[in-house]
């Protein structure tokens, strides 16, 4: 499984991108990542999850997961993170 994680926006508007491949992760993390993706029901999430609340300078996250020939990209506002997706985003943020 390969994941690309990009953070854009925020007050500074400075983008950060990282790519993670389970093949190069230690075994415990390599098995955790697919669990987080599954818990998020990632492949069934809409491509775009914008925030309906007014505001400014929140981060925007774009996550692409590639697994077994499947690929899906979700762009989500920090202010609209669905609870199911939060553990995956938190993990990626700290990776």
């Amino acid at each position: 499984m390969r994941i690309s994680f990009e953070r854009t926006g925020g007050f500074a508007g400075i983008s950060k991108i990282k790519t993670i491949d389970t093949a190069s992760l230690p075994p415990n993390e390599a098995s955790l990542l697919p669990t987080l993706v599954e818990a998020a029901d990632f492949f069934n999430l809409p491509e775009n999850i914008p925030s309906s609340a007014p505001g400014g300078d929140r981060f925007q996250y774009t996550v692409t997961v590639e697994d077994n020939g499947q690929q899906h990209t979700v762009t989500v506002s920090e202010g609209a993170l669905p609870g199911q997706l939060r553990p995956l985003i938190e993990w990626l943020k700290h990776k």
Partner: protein
Amino acid sequence: MAQKKIKFKCKHPLRRCPICCIVPPHMLENVAVSGSPEQREWAFHTLNLSAQFRGRRNTVGDITFMPQPGEKNRTIYDAGGNEQLPGKLVRSEGDPPGTDEAVNEAYDGAGATYDLFYEVFERNSIDDKGLRLNSTVHYGEKYDNAFWNGSQMVYGDGDGDLFQRFTKSIDVIGHELTHGVTQHEAGLIYFGESGAINESMSDVFGSLVKQKVKNQTADQADWVIGEGLFTSKVKGVGIRSMKAPGTAYDDEVLGKDPQPAHMKDIYTGTKDNGGVHINSGIPNHAFYLAAMDIGGYAWEKAGNIWYIALRDRLRSKANFKKAAEITIKVAGELHGEASNEQKAVQNAWQKVGVV
């Protein structure tokens, strides 16, 4: 003082809540603590509104509690490294400064922003009705951001490696508070060109707060947004430059400032809500050019033209062209057709390739 009377808690199982409140305050408070981020924002916003309403009720019969125009009403909360808003109340209006720099900066910066809007544009707070200014500091862990969540300002401490605390720069505070003003006025949609105008308005008035505090004329100002936010490790003067968009930083780790100064370089991708913090360079530079051409204190003429456009003329879907047309028109109304001021605004938008 009024804010002492305004409390979030509406203790009533037996007494009716004065404004009522389809969702009882205790439930809202629960949601404010344990809900999802959006639920929490909504709950906080609602509690805040009810507190204001109750504040107004409290004023009936005792007019001295009514916040007078020009009277600031600030509260600072401490999130203590968590992401729960608003956090613990640490300073209210009139309380003396404490030992926490972030608290003091958030308090003073909100005050300076209130003063600019009140003294120069005769605006009484974010909503022009004396809305209390709520800020939370120490939000999140090594959080590299400051934001406006629709009802309050929120500041992170920065990671300490690249970014310092976000209250360090007074224009950041002015920037966040201006998002509140924009929300109550033009309501510029936070995507694409309207979003970049929204961002630019925050930079313009954020910069004017700093210029007013430093008593600088347009040519004395540095026109840098977020000066002092970077640690000494980063090669850069700040986050954005209104004078020379695209030149604020050029760093091995952070990359290069991506802001365009001209329409020919406009960003058309979807990142950052369609480049709201990228393309704001274009209207930012137009404001800078107009203010420099007019001369003197930038808030007096250029600032006023932009403020009136934001308050009375711009619609939520405005694009750069519309913003240009409107500010040129407002300049003509205020200073006369073909006046130097109108020509300055017209030339500014021409130089950045919008008209």
